[in-house]
């Protein structure tokens, strides 16, 4: 299969959907003339014109509010927020309007709004440009939370988001944009929400990865294999809806689970997954549920400190080995 980058896969998903459906359009800061601050929407202005690739003022609340209005009037907007850290500027629109419109209109309003946003630490971007805001919104019913970890999933999940009738927060990890992998060219290739992906099978420990931590989990699994520990790596793909069944089935097999995400550990996505497993799969657990996540401090600028705070491959390896302290 042809291989392209995560960034290209996202651009391809947007372009294909805009070609097939005239109600789909892109809006955001610098998405047009500049091609997006991460270059994701390069040359889209030339193909689709200013009506459909719209540069907006620097106001996140205006971008989301306009997106909501357009969505309720029958359009399918893709609203880009440059950094996940800035989502809070649009907090009221997202939390009180976008997420609630369907419910408070008695089901009359559809909100097919896709909010594309970058997440994660790109390296020395410091505390205001490095956060992983996934779990901030997991507590808001009405929003779907999508965390693609591979180029193919980025394309397939984004197309599902654009074609769906409900608001989606689509979190693109900055350090995955350059990641290259096989991506189907079929314009009807979609990846459904709520289906976790077992990327590597193993019998000893389940590692549930969120976004970039899936990649690190796979690297950790290679290291663990050399030590005789067979890890099963699962990419959650979507945090809301969460694929409980696949996770429980895996834990029932391995009896050990590590949840790895780049968001801060305290009340991060792993807290919800851990609680779900404690409620529904406790009899399968042969040890504690372990979370590998960023330490609970604002992300530092200093590379040394940042590396210390962020979770890495070795943290996952050590977490897995902690289940068998007797093993050397």
């Amino acid at each position, binding site marked *: 299969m042809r291989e392209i980058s995560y960034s290209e896969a996202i651009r391809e998903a947007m372009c294909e959907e805009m070609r097939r459906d005239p109600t789909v359009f892109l809006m955001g800061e610098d998405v047009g003339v500049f091609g997006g601050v991460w270059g994701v929407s390069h040359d889209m202005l030339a193909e689709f014109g200013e009506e459909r690739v719209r540069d907006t003022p620097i106001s996140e609340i205006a971008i989301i509010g306009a997106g909501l209005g357009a969505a309720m009037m029958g359009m399918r907007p893709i609203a880009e927020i440059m950094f996940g850290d800035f989502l809070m500027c649009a907090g009221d629109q997202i939390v009180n309007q976008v997420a609630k419109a369907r419910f408070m209109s008695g089901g009359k309003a559809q909100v097919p709004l896709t909010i594309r946003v970058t997440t994660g630490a790109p390296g020395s971007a410091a505390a205001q440009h490095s956060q992983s805001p996934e779990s901030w919104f997991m507590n808001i019913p009405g929003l779907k939370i999508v965390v693609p970890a591979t180029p193919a999933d980025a394309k397939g999940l984004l197309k599902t988001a654009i074609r769906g009738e409900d608001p989606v927060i689509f979190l693109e990890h900055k350090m995955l944009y350059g990641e290259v992998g096989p991506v189907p060219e079929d314009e009807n290739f979609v990846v459904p929400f709520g289906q976790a992906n077992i990327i590597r099978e193993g019998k000893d420990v389940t590692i549930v990865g969120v976004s970039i931590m899936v990649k690190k989990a796979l690297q950790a699994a290679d290291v663990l294999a050399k030590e005789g520990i067979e890890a099963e790596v699962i990419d959650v793909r979507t945090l809301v809806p969460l694929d409980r069944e696949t996770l429980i089935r895996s834990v029932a097999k391995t*009896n050990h689970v590590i949840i790895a995400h780049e968001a801060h550990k305290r009340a991060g996505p792993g807290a919800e997954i851990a609680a779900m497993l404690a409620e529904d799969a406790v009899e*399968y657990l*042969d040890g*504690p549920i372990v979370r590998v996540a960023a330490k609970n401090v604002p992300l530092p600028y200093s590379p040394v400190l940042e590396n210390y705070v962020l979770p890495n491959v070795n943290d996952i390896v050590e977490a897995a080995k902690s289940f068998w*302290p*007797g093993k050397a």
Partner: protein
Amino acid sequence: MAENKSGYTVVMPKLGLIMTEALLVEWRRQDGEWIDKGEVLFTLESDKSTLEIESPASGYVRILVTAGKVVPVQTPIAIIESTLEQTTSLPSVSEVAQQSVSLVSEQVAVERHVVAKDSFPSFLAASPRARFLARKAGISLIGIAGSGPRGMIVANDFSNVKQQWRSLRETESKPYASLSGLRAIIAERLTVGWRERPQATLSVELDASNLVSARQQIELETGRKVSYNAFLMLAVARTFVEQPHVNIRLTEKGLVQLQEINIGLAVDTPRGLMVPVIKNVDKKELLEIDQEIQQVARRALEGKSLPDELTNGSFTITNLGAYGVDSFAPIINPPEIGILAVGRIAQRPFVFNGQLAVRETMILSFAFDHRLLDGAPAARFLQRVVQLIERPILLYSHRFI
């Protein structure tokens, strides 16, 4: 259960009208282990029924009576303490037994103590998986060395121990075992019944053709196959109504005329013989009795009999016809006055209308407590039962005429 300064006193509950004692089968918590209110604390066996008893409070369990003993009701058997510290000043079992204790469970919650980790010496650190497997296998995790994180016992540790136990059991198989549980209760009751009661047995072969026919007619009408036991129960109940002087019981305080006609049915269960009792049989219709027999028998088979369902019988019916037994001499189920043994219904040569004929016949054997009943009244009792079975229309006649 009562609260005192050292916690809640758990007593052996009185669960049936005539329950006086019960076998303490098993503790679900070890001494010193924590239990939450509402979790099963122990199981008891009384009158052939096994019951799970929940803890009335949350706290550490201090066991006063070890499992495997028969304990009179109201006897304190454990204390639920809010802390582990008071272990040294515990009253002895006999001291506790002197205290008056209340049966009413009081709804006062005991606050779970917030204590530092170090002061949890007897807390068993085990993974949920290990606990689950141990519970399934019925093996305690206490004493197993943990190899998991923070020293907790994990599934693998448990499997190793299970393996060792298995090989141990194979090398040390004992030639003798003591009676336990239901078997011990049955043995005790039969011994008492046999030793204390001079019993005599009367037998008669009867023509069951009309009974077979009546059953078929009811099936044609209702589609239901009524059990012969239901007919027999109704016949015995009718006889009791007509001959109330037989419905008596000898107790320690003297002779009692029973007001209700309650008849038990012997049921063979995987755990042993059980005798669920149908109450007020004389006030019930045949189909009602049949349905009730099915219900109580099912509960008995599943070991889920209700406490009152196994007590207070006047009389027992025991039927081995299904096993092809022609007749047998039963032993009275104390404190009842008698028991009716029912053999199979089979085609046998029988004199009918002065001619030798092949008829459906059945042999009934009535064993009775000869202290309370002479031979002639006992024979009259059996004779009337036989009449009602040979002419089952009579079972209904009193309701119409």
